[in-house]
């Protein structure tokens, strides 16, 4: 298994290299160039040339890429004109908030997804099962931000149960209770899509397993159904479910951009939304790069985990 993990780790190197090429290319496809975006149309030609020279934009593309890479390796992602701070420091401050949201959404989507998927798999073809199919279709056809707005409307504005924006209350805010209250709706919004997919995969993986011979044997031995499901069926359905959970990581990271925007959650996503309207390209570039690298790393961890739970790979 160790050689599998080492191999898999080595595969990440060219991918991350490719990711830097793509994010670098983002500045190359700007109509005009970065200076036009930063200075607008009113600046003088001299000022443009000066900034172009300062940013190295008058160099050949390949030189620009190497300069981008050397800055990157020293942790310099450029300067955000929207926040008037180095991009890396804004991203660093915000990463924790995005991680809080992404992790809580993963936990909720996984726990509820597996529970609901199992519950539905116990009675295939029933009314419960059909209702589930319709619910999954709805959740997967729903823009996440719209679902967030519905939650705000119902739990925030109509019932007044939950705070509708931010991470802490402005007045007398702070503390874990306050944070948790602010987290409920963004977490549900972000988790909804993944929850539907994890539940669907749990259901189908369980149904595959439940019809197999060894489950029939367990039943014939007179084991109680809950015990059969928990001890015999679920563990064997897990590898498939884990793969799907891993695939959701990408959705959770990109979904965070939308969810944070709806709930004004002060993470990378909200900052990127603000950067879009300010045409703060260096910030968007840095955000895309960071989230892509996090995504690559998460996929690596998921693959390692998959190798751990799947005996076929574990023993190889």
């Amino acid at each position, binding site marked *: 298994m160790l050689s599998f993990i080492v191999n898999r780790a080595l595969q990440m190197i060219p991918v991350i290299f490719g990711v830097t*090429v793509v994010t670098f290319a983002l500045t190359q496809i*700007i109509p005009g160039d970065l200076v036009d975006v930063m200075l607008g149309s009113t600046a003088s030609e001299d000022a443009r040339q000066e900034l172009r020279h300062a940013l190295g934009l008058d160099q050949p593309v390949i030189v620009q890429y190497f300069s981008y890479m050397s800055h990157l390796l020293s942790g310099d992602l450029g300067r955000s004109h929207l926040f008037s701070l180095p991009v890396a420091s804004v991203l660093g401050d915000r990463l924790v908030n995005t991680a809080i949201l992404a992790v809580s959404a993963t936990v909720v989507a996984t726990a509820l997804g597996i529970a609901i998927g199992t519950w539905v798999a116990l009675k295939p073809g029933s009314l419960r099962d059909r209702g589930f199919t319709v619910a999954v279709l709805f959740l997967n056809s729903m823009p996440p*931000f*719209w679902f967030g*707005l519905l939650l705000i*409307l119902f739990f925030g504005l109509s019932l007044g149960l939950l705070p509708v924006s931010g991470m802490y209350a402005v007045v007398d805010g702070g503390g874990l209770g306050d944070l948790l209250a602010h987290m409920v709706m963004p977490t549900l919004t972000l988790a909804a899509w993944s929850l539907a997919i994890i539940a669907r995969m749990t259901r189908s993986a369980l149904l595959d397993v439940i019809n197999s011979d060894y489950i029939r044997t367990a039943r014939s031995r007179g084991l109680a159904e809950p015990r059969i499901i928990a001890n015999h069926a679920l563990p064997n359905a897990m590898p498939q479910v884990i793969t799907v959970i891993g695939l959701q990581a990408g959705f959770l990271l990109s979904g965070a951009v*939308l969810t944070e925007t709806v709930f004004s959650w002060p993470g990378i996503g909200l900052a990127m939304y603000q950067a879009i309207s300010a045409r703060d390209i260096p910030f968007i570039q840095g955000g*895309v790069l960071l989230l*892509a690298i996090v995504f690559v790393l998460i996929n690596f961890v998921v693959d390692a985990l998959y190798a751990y739970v799947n005996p076929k790979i574990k023993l190889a």
Partner: protein
Amino acid sequence: MTNQSIADLAPTADDTPSILRRLLGNSAIAIGAIIIAAIVLAAALAEVIAPYDPLFANPLVRHKLPLSAGYLLGTDELGRDILSRLIYGARLALLVAVVPTLIALVIGGCIGLIAGYAGGTWDHVVMRVFDVMFAFPGILLALGISAALGPGLGSMIIAMVVVTIPTFGRVVRGGVLAVKEEPYIEAARALGYGAFRIALRHVAPNVLGAAIVYATLQTGRNVILAASLSFLGLAPQPPTPDWGQMLSAGRTSLAIAAHVSTIPGLAIVLLAIGFNLLGDGARDLLDPRMKREQP
């Protein structure tokens, strides 16, 4: 062996009548088709059926609730009729869902076909490039490209195409690898047909089914992707009626006029459901191998 008998060996030859019968008997496809047909019809007949000019703002009737006299779905923050804006907006919604899918299907399909059939270095290079593209989660790359190019319809479509090409490339390549070793392809090779002719006339038609199923499902995803990009401010600029933007603009008046946001959202959901039902149904019918999730 003649050309005719090679075609006879291929699986698609005479399945058409039974596929058609199964298509009509599949309720998912039927419901999906009705939803899409209704939206296409509304878009095509917008001038005839829309009660008002979608851009006409009447400050006297701002934030009218649905079912108000003269305004079936109410009015928005500028006093524009929401129903009319939805009907006209259907054009853009269909356009940004279907066009990027088709372009990506053609480009990604060609790349996948060549990579799968030619194999070797070319295949290796293409797959590594795709690996890099897949390293970007969901809408993130689309957001980056769209933001760099500047908001607008063109940049939105380019961004969506770039992001979806690898998925189609991979689906088609996988299909080609499976079909490549079939006896009828070997027969064609034995007859001395050129690689180009075999790839285009004998391999491509047999991976098209899976690609079309995938394209239908991707169209449903593109409905959401496009709405997400416009929600983030990357849509065609106002006042063009755009569902994602209508939803986004209505957020500011959520407390006093929730329908301004919720109704366009419902339209997006309906369109996505239509394509998803079509895609799910088509997948179950045409590509049993992909039907793994519903035993």
